[in-house]
């Protein structure tokens, strides 16, 4: 039946799925949609609220105050020359971006089943757009961190950033990849088994305490049982949080091999997440 002038098939719809098909080409074709979703998220989140984006500031500030009271005043965790409040604010700012990406993308399929059930576009656009729009939130929180930073410098505290600050984009990328990858994995699994959604709420807050957010990794090594300390040390999120504090506050120890490991884990998680996600998108409508 094949004649010369027949063009090759553009694409095939079937249940088969090659294992390593990441669908990146199609995601690129839909980049305008990605941009519009990001814009939509940013524009609409705080419509009809009085304080608007100020809400982005209140959560990290209050959490830092509480952490400072509990962990530093009551628990006596030492943060060296760095003021405890600034130390906590740095940790929370880094943690928050990871958490927002993770939590925001983990319910992709459940939240969007209406639209996914009607039109096709590469489903990965949705979690990607969440990751991008969270950057704005991250930026605002970074700004308030900067304000307090300057305040403390003027106040005469001996804090300074260091050369590793150039790695900042890499750290942001790792946070995004890790949160996005985990979120896509969870959102794929929850289409059929909702148990994970229940687990996620407290699982994430537990993870925060094991990710060196309110304490330095060195402190964990001194005081935690060995296996917990090991987990904290190799946990990519605590590496990212600690790295963030090293860059801005020169607090903590920097290790290239740990950075490399964290980077590999982040990229790996992202690709696994994307693979599982792409596999799920084909039939999730039937099982959700």
């Amino acid at each position, binding site marked *: 039946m094949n004649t010369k002038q027949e063009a090759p098939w553009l*694409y095939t719809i079937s249940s088969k799925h090659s294992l390593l098909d990441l669908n990146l080409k199609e995601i690129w074709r839909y980049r305008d*949609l990605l941009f519009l979703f990001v814009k939509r998220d940013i524009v609409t989140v705080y419509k009809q609220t009085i304080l608007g984006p100020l809400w982005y500031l209140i959560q990290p500030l209050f959490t830092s105050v509480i952490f400072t009271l509990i962990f530093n005043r009551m628990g006596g965790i030492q943060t060296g020359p760095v003021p405890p409040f600034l130390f906590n604010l740095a940790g929370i700012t880094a943690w928050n971006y990871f958490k927002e990406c993770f939590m925001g993308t983990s319910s992709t399929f459940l939240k969007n089943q209406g639209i996914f059930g009607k039109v*096709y576009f590469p489903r990965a656009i949705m979690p990607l757009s969440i990751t991008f729009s969270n950057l704005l939130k991250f930026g605002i929180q970074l700004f308030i961190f900067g304000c307090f930073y300057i305040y403390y410098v003027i106040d005469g505290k001996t804090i300074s950033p260091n050369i590793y600050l150039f790695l900042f984009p890499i750290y942001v990328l790792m946070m995004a990849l890790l949160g996005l990858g985990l979120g896509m994995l969870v959102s794929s699994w929850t289409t059929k088994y909702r148990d994970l959604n229940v687990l996620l709420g407290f699982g994430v807050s537990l993870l925060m305490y094991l990710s060196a957010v309110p304490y330095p990794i060195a402190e964990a090594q001194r005081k935690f049982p060995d296996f917990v300390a090991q987990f904290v040390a190799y946990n990519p999120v605590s590496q990212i949080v600690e790295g963030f504090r090293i860059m801005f506050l020169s607090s903590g120890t920097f290790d290239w091999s740990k950075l490399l490991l964290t980077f590999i884990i982040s990229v790996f998680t992202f690709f696994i997440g994307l693979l599982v996600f792409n596999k799920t998108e084909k039939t999730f409508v039937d099982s959700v």
Partner: protein
Amino acid sequence: MSQVILKAENISKQYRLGTVGTGTLSHDLNRWWHRVRGKEDPYLKVGSVNDRSTEADSEYVWALKDINFEVQQGEVLGIIGKNGAGKSTLLKILSRVTSPTTGEIKTRGRIASLLEVGTGFHPELTGRENIYLNGAILGMTKKEIRAKEAEIIDFSGCARYVDTPVKRYSSGMRVRLAFAVAAFLEPDILVIDEVLAVGDAEFQKKAIGKMQDISQGEGRTVLFVSHNMAAVKSLCTRAIVLVHGQTAFEGTAQDGVDFYLNLEENSSQGSSEIDYSENPVGDLGVKLLKVSTEDDYGKLRSTFLQSENIIVKIKFYLNENIKGLRFNLTVKNSAQEIAFATSSHEKTKHLLSEGEYSLELTLPSNLLNNKQYVLMLNAGVPGRQVLIEPIDVLVIDIQNDYSSGSTYIEKWPGLVAPKIQWKLDA
């Protein structure tokens, strides 16, 4: 010259009946265990044909089974079938919302579907912002949308509100805007479901006109899924008829529509003949035995085109000699409003002796409107005796065939829609 732009090979889709719940994990594990050993999915072998009305004998059901078809470039293919025949499942597979259980569809062009208009509208965004968002969701690039923005706004008739958040729109305006975006899509293959039941009358006409343009004027490849036989007949070049998830017919649109109308059970209420002979109606002198509806060729039918005659046959038995008898046939719409009534009095008023009789009447073509009618029958001797209380006997479906004189496919007002001659003088 014209090439196959889309080819479906052995498309099947299996669904699990009942609630997807506790059993899924064990089935999933079983599937996985078979896959690990390189065996076929054990649940693909089971499953029954998808007949909604019969009791299922398996937990799995084939919503579609071995569908094969090809679409040539520029062809308008109608997909017809009653509710539950698998039309929507096929559409969902074509628009890549879900994937087939087995088989594959190959395509040489991009497919876009109008499964539901207004997908992804965000209430907080303005009309203009939603045009961009919705267009992008449907697969347009920003550049394409920008080029058509003015046309879209103009077509929707919402120019005044275009910078107002969509949540302030009336539902009609929202639909107009949504359809306007969808109407300006330009994919290689367009999949259209029946989206016509929305919007006010004026807008419906606009929308249908646009659809006719798309499918006729612009030579686009279109897959058109519909219940509306007149639409299929006038828009499509070819049609396939789905019955219980299988292709029952493939051929020209005209033949496809005929095939569909001749399917025995295509009326929503089900039957073209009602037999009372086991349990006759009427305990006085007259017993009603059977009522049926047929077409001109004597075939029992319950769905008719407006351009067809409907022959109603009434069989009854007289226990005694009766003088002055009459049967009345009342044609009502489904809301029980009477369209008209007709009586057999002229033919049955003289003395009739005991025995079996049959009456026949013809509801003329180009009289009934495009809707469902209930036929009600009663019998008696006027002024003296009620022999059979009014009883709803049959339901008939009338399909649009332009007898109103309008060449649009649309809902037409009125209990009846008789064909009226118009004359135009220059």
